[in-house]
């Protein structure tokens, strides 16, 4: 049954796709009332999304391809297969939960194992700090604005380094505990340095892509890179992990994507807005 109101979901999608082109939304509304066809309305909305968001769509697909390519390259000296095997065996244990939260990129110990999460975390911390700073020092003469972009980048690289070292230690420890699992061939300082450099390079390149997307006003770079990482992660997980794990992974990432997107609209999260 059709009524005078077009499908709400389609209208919601349309409004986000056409960026304030109210005349087009009004035209579709007017024509829908004459035709009373949901199929026609949906087709028009999807065309509007394709026409108005083609650059974003292509960009996300490009970054997904980059993620998938990067997922073929593991950190030198690390063998991901035993770790993935251990994760499959550990369903229902704390490590099993960790493997779901970490996603396939981290378990594969790939170049993009840390994804863009260090940047997201750093942006949220720095922006919260900057807001608190502005609130505490209200006198503009005494207040010196926080260099948000530079601090966010530094903090993100520090976080990335700490997480990379943590992952290297975790892999070495897993090899030592489970003697049958040869996750790390030659544990030691060299392996830690290699992991640090590889993972920091991977995440920094994602941060650069994210910043360029935002600077060129194509969209919210951090959000698009994050979504692309999630899509690549889910596509790799499908058919390999149990459906519950895939759904949990996707739900967690949708929640983080929501926070990033909301923060962008409120101009508090992405560092490049400063």
């Amino acid at each position: 049954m059709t009524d005078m109101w077009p499908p709400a979901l389609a209208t919601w999608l349309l409004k986000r796709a056409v960026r304030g082109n109210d005349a087009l939304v009004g035209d579709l509304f007017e024509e829908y009332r004459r035709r009373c066809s949901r199929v026609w309305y949906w087709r028009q909305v999807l065309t509007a999304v394709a026409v108005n968001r083609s650059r974003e769509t292509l960009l996300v697909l490009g970054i997904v391809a980059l993620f998938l390519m990067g997922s073929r390259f593991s950190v030198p000296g690390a063998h991901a297969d035993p770790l993935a095997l251990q994760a499959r065996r550990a369903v229902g244990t704390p490590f099993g939960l960790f493997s779901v939260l970490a996603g396939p990129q981290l378990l594969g110990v790939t170049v993009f194992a840390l994804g863009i999460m260090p940047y997201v975390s750093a942006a949220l911390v720095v922006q919260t700090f900057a807001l608190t700073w502005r609130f505490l020092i209200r006198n503009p003469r005494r207040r010196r604005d926080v260099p948000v972009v530079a601090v966010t980048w530094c903090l993100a690289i520090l976080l990335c380094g700490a997480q990379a070292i943590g992952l290297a230690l975790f892999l070495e420890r897993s090899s030592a505990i489970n003697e049958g699992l040869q996750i790390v061939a030659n544990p030691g300082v060299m392996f830690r340095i290699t992991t640090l450099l590889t993972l920091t390079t991977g995440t920094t390149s994602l941060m650069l892509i994210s910043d360029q997307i935002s600077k060129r006003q194509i969209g919210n770079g951090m959000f698009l890179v994050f979504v692309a990482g999630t899509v690549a992660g889910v596509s790799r997980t499908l058919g390999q992990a149990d459906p519950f794990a895939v759904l949990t992974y996707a739900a967690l990432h949708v929640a983080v994507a929501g926070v990033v997107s909301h923060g962008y609209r409120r101009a508090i999260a992405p560092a490049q807005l400063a």
Partner: protein
Amino acid sequence: MSARFNLGTFDLMILLALMRLGDAAYGVPISREIEETSGRVVALATLYATLTRLEKNGLVSSRLGEPTAERGGRAKRYFRVTAKGLREVRDAQRVFTSLWNGIPTLKGGVV
């Protein structure tokens, strides 16, 4: 001298539809006009994307009307052909006519 704009078939159809509709030219009637005369289904988003491009190139101009209840409180955007747009249509007509004149009469779909 300003740069020439290469009119595509769809651009030309839109400009002609605008000229036929006069002051009442906004998204819905323009798409209907093209659908009725050419039989071609027009997506409104494609129509607006083309109109925006034509406006950027100075071939059409637009103005916002008043918001109306039957459109969910949204205003119509009326379009009209500018002097530059009119020149482009005339040029296209001249080119097409002269090309057409050199072809024998079309009968039954074959020359």
